[in-house]
């Protein structure tokens, strides 16, 4: 089964089930639960008392009642990325094992890396660890960003549980674990700042800030105080690159999603025509002629270079295209851009609301949002972003060897990238 598309009504049902706490079920089961309880949704909430998501559940009930009464609504349904950090790390490294447990491969399974991790730990330790799922989730999230303290806090130092945790992590997400080592090793001990760019040109600049502490005497009051402040100085070692690089990529995913959902129709339609015309032109052109010398605008030069470095095509370039500038893009780049433009033009632009890895829109548009999200991840999986980012940070060309080159195709057929 490929990606399931739902009616707007069904998205409302999924939404209410999610806020009831059933987001780990497959979509059809969530819909079924809401249908079975449709008449009593409010009563269920009343009987249950308080829980964290109750306001969102009650609001989803209101939206359902409005829809039944054929009232217009501005209610937004939301979907979260499945284990966002691990999902992105698996995508970038071409890791199918990690992609499987983060919803990017099997369209029939609502994968959940934390549940999987708990199950593997239970097997390794030969005991049921499911009561500690929350602890395991926290240890997993933080350890992928370089924390050693949190897993120790969760499982104790030098314990069989801690060993099983690390063993299980490598088993369920080997690409992410390998990448973590490379991210930690990318720290530049002599640098005042770490800088890298995302495929859309976003410039990350992170100053190295060193914590200072001093006891300062204030004779005027006959007292001394401990002051803490931060200075911009090199630091021999830190783990911050792990979280910072992965968060910069989730920021990029978010920007790409906003650009693909809420686009300028005129600009994208025009770009689509230019890209199509250029491709036709190239079929008949003499290949020996090659590309025209240098792009005449900085924007096109930057995007062409970014594509050459990352192999990720970003639609930010569309607004700078004209009949001359399009000639400076590589054929493969044009083909990828064209594919994205066509996906966008399948729907009218629509507004979305984002909270890092949580995305909301009107239920009428959720099919398109989900489709764009998995396509963005697939584009990243097809590309070579890690080689680019490590080359920039280390200051020398290098290549990060991915674990596979066909993960993108699998992601394009996935169902539970967002859930």
């Amino acid at each position: 089964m490929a990606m399931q598309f739902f009616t707007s009504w069904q998205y409302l049902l999924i939404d209410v089930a999610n806020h009831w706490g059933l987001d780990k079920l497959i979509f059809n089961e969530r819909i079924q639960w809401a249908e079975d309880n449709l008449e009593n949704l409010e009563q269920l909430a009343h009987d249950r008392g308080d829980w964290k998501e109750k306001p969102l559940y009650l609001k989803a009930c209101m939206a359902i009642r409005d829809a039944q009464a054929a009232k217009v609504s501005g209610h937004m349904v939301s979907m979260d990325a499945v284990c966002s950090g691990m999902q992105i790390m698996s995508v970038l490294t071409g890791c199918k094992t990690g992609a499987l447990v983060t919803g990017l491969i099997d369209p029939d399974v609502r994968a959940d890396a934390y549940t999987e991790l708990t199950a593997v730990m239970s097997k390794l330790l030969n005991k049921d660890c499911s009561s500690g799922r929350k602890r395991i989730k926290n240890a997993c999230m933080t350890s992928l960003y370089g924390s050693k303290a949190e897993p120790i806090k969760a499982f104790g130092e030098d314990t069989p549980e801690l060993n099983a945790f690390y063993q299980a992590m490598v088993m369920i997400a080997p690409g992410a674990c390998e990448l973590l080592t490379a991210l930690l090793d990318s720290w530049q001990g002599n640098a005042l700042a770490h800088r890298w760019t995302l495929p859309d040109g976003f410039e990350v600049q992170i100053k190295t800030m060193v914590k200072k502490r001093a006891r300062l005497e204030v004779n005027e009051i006959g007292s001394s105080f401990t002051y803490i402040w931060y200075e911009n100085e090199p630091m021999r070692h830190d783990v911050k690159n792990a979280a910072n690089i992965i968060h910069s990529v989730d920021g990029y995913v978010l920007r790409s999603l906003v650009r693909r959902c809420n686009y300028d129709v005129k600009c994208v339609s025009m770009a689509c025509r230019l890209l199509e015309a250029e491709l036709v032109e190239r079929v008949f052109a003499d290949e020996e002629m090659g590309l025209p010398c240098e792009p005449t605008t900085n924007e096109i030069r930057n995007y062409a270079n970014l594509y050459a470095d990352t192999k990720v095509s970003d639609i930010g370039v569309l607004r700078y295209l004209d009949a001359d500038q399009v000639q400076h893009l590589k054929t493969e780049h044009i083909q990828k851009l064209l594919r994205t433009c066509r996906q966008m033009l399948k729907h009218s632009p629509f507004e979305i609301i984002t909270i890092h890895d949580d995305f909301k829109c009107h239920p009428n548009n959720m099919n398109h949002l989900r489709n764009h999200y998995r396509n963005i991840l697939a584009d990243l999986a097809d590309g070579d972003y890690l080689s680019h980012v490590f080359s920039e940070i280390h200051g020398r060309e290098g290549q990060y060897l991915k674990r596979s080159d066909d993960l993108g195709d699998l992601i394009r057929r996935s169902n539970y990238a967002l859930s």
Partner: protein
Amino acid sequence: MKITPEYDYFELQKQTEQQYSRKHVLRKIRDFLFAEPEIQCKITQGAELLKEWLSSDHHKSKQKRLAELRDFDLEILTRDVITHSSIILKPELFVSFTSQLAHSLNFSDRADAIATVAEIVVVLAQLDAYYIIKPSREASLQIQSRINLPHEMQEAVQRSHYLPPMLIEPDLITNNYQSPYLTFNDCQILGKGNGHTGEIGLDVINTQNGVQLTLNEQFLKTVKEEPSYELDSLEKQQGWAVFKRQSKDVYDLIIETGNVFWETHKVDKRGRLYVNGYHVTTMGTPYKKAMIDLAKQELVTGVPNRQRKR
């Protein structure tokens, strides 16, 4: 107050910014303070105290450090200390107040700046513009204003961290140091010292700033806003009461002016996008998230006939 269609929303937005923005509130307080002859007198007196203190005997290293103050206008320095202390309505740690103030002194060495500011604050305590308190023998030193600001200014100080959402469509941002607001500019990258002029995806900030939102009045009327934490101390109960009252003020402002608003956004240094907002925010508690709808409303399609209720 119901806003008539002819109401000048541009003016309303400006007034809201004047009322809530910290920069504007501080400016208003400064204007208020320095119109008071008594404060003027304190400033002159403060400059004299500092002059005297600077010229007195200090050990060599301190003398060297204080030499950096030579080029400072001591009246302006006194004015800054008084202005910043006047908004300390509740006791605050002496250490954190002086560290923040030290940011404004362009000393080459941060530790020197902190030490000097701490000394200046102690010297200027003689003006009786603030208390320096030690609540108990073990407790850390605290500072609290002694200046009686008018009630509306005290309220403005408490609210001033959090601008309500915009009531008109935000201006398009074309550089990293512009803001979508009408009366001030602001760096679009969060965090002190993180600003730069490189690419930060302003197109996405503009797109998200342009999403028109509305409060769901039915939800606000029927679902009670509850704290997301235990109210297990008097301080927490008071804090929650203030937060609820301020939130209601912002909901009322939005609803009375037509119930359409726009949230503004910034990025952090890594490129993660954040909403500027507190009382009304799509990034808040489940209640805050639930009360916000898209202003552009549509009919939900695909409702099976058997489920329709007319």
